[in-house]
């Protein structure tokens, strides 16, 4: 007798924004599997038109409260590309420092509060705190140190910082303001090492994919806020060529456009891609910690992403510590931009992967057109292909457990649906 199974989750939890999964199975065969995004559209690219170039960093920050620096820095890089501005080293270092803060805050939130509960069979971090309060207290302190960096460099707050501008900063932080980060960061390095050990002891479902990874690549650093784009299929191109390689399509189930590589189909962005393409750029401590956690130089199981994120927290803490210890105030906090008609391109490694910006400016600096391709939009197709495997390998599970496993697989990507547009509903139908 044909057996139909229907599993439905109306709203996927512990992701940023609102999305859904529809799954219909007939006799154990997947009939339909769609990861959808119903976050209401907010039209940023449309209302950027006619605004001044200098407004783009603050306006685009409002795409995402969790990774505002990714948007501010993407917009700033693009505007500085258009206006031909090169910032001096101390400003560059401050930018990397604040971006490390965002990685620590965002990854810390995801690893401990959004993802770890899945591996432990708990509903949330509050339940985790009932089982292991000291662990959650440490996790919160680690995340808080990320926020302290954001506030120290970003002008007093972690969400939508006010101090970043095209050309540099409104006011350079004092040595004292940055120096206050050093001791907390020493503690954070130790705690993030411990985090790698804690999460690597979890049990990992088995899924393997031969992904096409895309990430930034920098001459000598683990990539965060600059570099060229590369893939593990031999592509290597500057940010300005991104749209020659990547396009987006609009599908009915999603208010977020689906990104894909024109020549290769679905590509994977985010911590796993960054790590696999830049393993040789990790610092010695992070590389050692990764090896001890059992990670090779290339990641193929998406459930290992939680370990990779922890390794990246460690890397960001070490980088931030070094930058904070060596900080010297720049002579001038910013370079005054001179508007001109031009097109500019920017791409940085948001916590969830590459985030691309392009702006066309008029002579007076007004924005004529804008295009932003966030990481979660690029990962939607990959999330669906992971889910096919997860479902096929877990058909024996009762509906409730299968549903949870699917949610966990989606959370491997820390999808930021606010960014991609934003709603996660999970529906599974079995026939």
């Amino acid at each position, binding site marked *: 007798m044909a057996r139909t199974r229907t599993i439905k989750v109306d*709203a996927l939890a*512990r992701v940023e924004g*609102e999305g859904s999964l529809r799954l219909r199975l007939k006799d154990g065969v997947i009939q339909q599997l769609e990861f959808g995004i119903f976050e209401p559209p907010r*039209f940023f*690219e449309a209302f950027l038109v006619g605004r001044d170039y200098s407004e783009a960093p603050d306006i685009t920050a409002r795409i995402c409260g969790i990774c505002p620096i990714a948007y501010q820095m993407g917009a700033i890089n693009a505007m500085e590309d258009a206006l031909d501005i090169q910032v001096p080293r101390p400003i560059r270092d401050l930018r990397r420092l604040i971006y490390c803060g965002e990685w620590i805050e965002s990854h810390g*939130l995801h690893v401990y509060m959004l993802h770890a509960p899945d591996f432990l069979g708990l509903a949330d971090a509050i339940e985790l705190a009932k089982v292991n309060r000291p662990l959650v207290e440490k996790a919160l302190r680690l995340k808080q140190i990320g926020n302290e960096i954001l506030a120290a460099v970003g002008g007093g707050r972690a969400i*939508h910082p006010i101090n970043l501008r095209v050309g540099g900063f409104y006011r350079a932080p004092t040595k004292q303001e940055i120096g206050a980060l050093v001791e907390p960061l020493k503690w954070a390095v130790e705690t993030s090492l411990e985090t790698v050990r804690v999460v690597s002891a979890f049990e990992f479902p088995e899924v393997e994919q031969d992904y096409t990874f895309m990430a930034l690549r920098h001459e000598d650093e683990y990539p965060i806020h600059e570099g060229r784009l590369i893939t593990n299929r031999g592509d290597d191109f500057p940010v300005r060529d991104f749209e020659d390689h990547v396009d987006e399509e609009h599908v009915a189930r999603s*208010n977020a456009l689906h990104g894909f590589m024109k020549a290769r189909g679905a590509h994977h962005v985010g911590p796993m891609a960054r790590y696999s393409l830049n393993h040789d750029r990790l610092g010695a401590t992070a590389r050692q910690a990764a090896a001890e956690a059992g990670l090779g130089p290339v990641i193929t199981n998406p459930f290992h992403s939680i370990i990779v994120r922890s390794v990246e927290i460690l890397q960001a803490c070490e980088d931030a510590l070094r930058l904070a210890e060596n900080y010297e105030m720049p002579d001038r906090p910013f370079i005054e931009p001179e508007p001109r008609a031009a097109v500019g391109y920017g791409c940085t490694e948001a916590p969830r992967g590459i985030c691309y910006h392009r702006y066309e400016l008029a002579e007076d600096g007004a924005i004529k057109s804008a295009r932003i391709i966030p990481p979660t939009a690029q990962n939607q197709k990959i999330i669906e292909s992971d889910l096919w495997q997860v479902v096929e390998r877990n058909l024996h599970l009762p509906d409730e457990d299968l549903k949870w496993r699917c949610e966990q697989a989606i959370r491997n990507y820390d999808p930021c649906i606010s960014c991609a547009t*934003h709603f996660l509903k999970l529906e599974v139908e079995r026939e």
Partner: protein
Amino acid sequence: MAARKKPRLGVWKFSSCDGCQLTLLDCETELLAIADEIEIAYFLEATRREDKGRYDIALVEGSVTTPEEARKIRDVRRRSNLVLSVGACATTGGIQALRNFRDVKGFIDLVYAHPEYIDTLATSTAFADHIHVDFELRGCPPNKNQLLEVLSAYVAGRRPVVPTHSECMECKARGTVCVMVAQGTACMGPVTQAGCGNLCPSYDRGCYGCFGQKETPNTGSLAAWWREQLRMDGRDVRRRFSTYNANAPAFREESERHG
């Protein structure tokens, strides 16, 4: 004596960047203490625990931009004793209220290949435009300490203490030199509600109004000063009033005067 029953809290997201609910998760030092005092019954970003019950306190972030959201906020109201709107989107429609001034169909055509897939309202509006709201907390994002004050106040059964005077008062209290008078930098401080913690002026930057309009703001006077003293043109004045609280009545009217 029986233990006091914990108040039940629901946290709801509408059209937004998630930053306001993140403000609650950013209360790292206080979060576990909050969870000791308040039952976090519904908070999708933080827990997969589902809950269909009633709430003592509903925190709502984001704005109403779809027919579904207009229905959802009425449902939240019916199920909650107190509804607290948090943030610029919730209290004025937020940055996405910029659509209210334009043709939303044109926006959809610009961003999406298949406009027929998109179900959206022509406007982005505050919750108070749809339901009775018990308290509105401003800010893009809100100030963490103000959010804690609002929660503590309602748990204790009193009104929150959140000033409605201008950002200028924060500069005076902190001794920040006026950026407009001393540097000729355009500043929204005189018409913007205090509460951010005096951020922009203390970083040599003009306030950009993310806390929305203060009580009885004199926007016309400020705009005239900008135009006379700073030689700003109409487009620049309009842009400054049309940002994260573009649909706040005084800001909206002022921006429309400089078309």
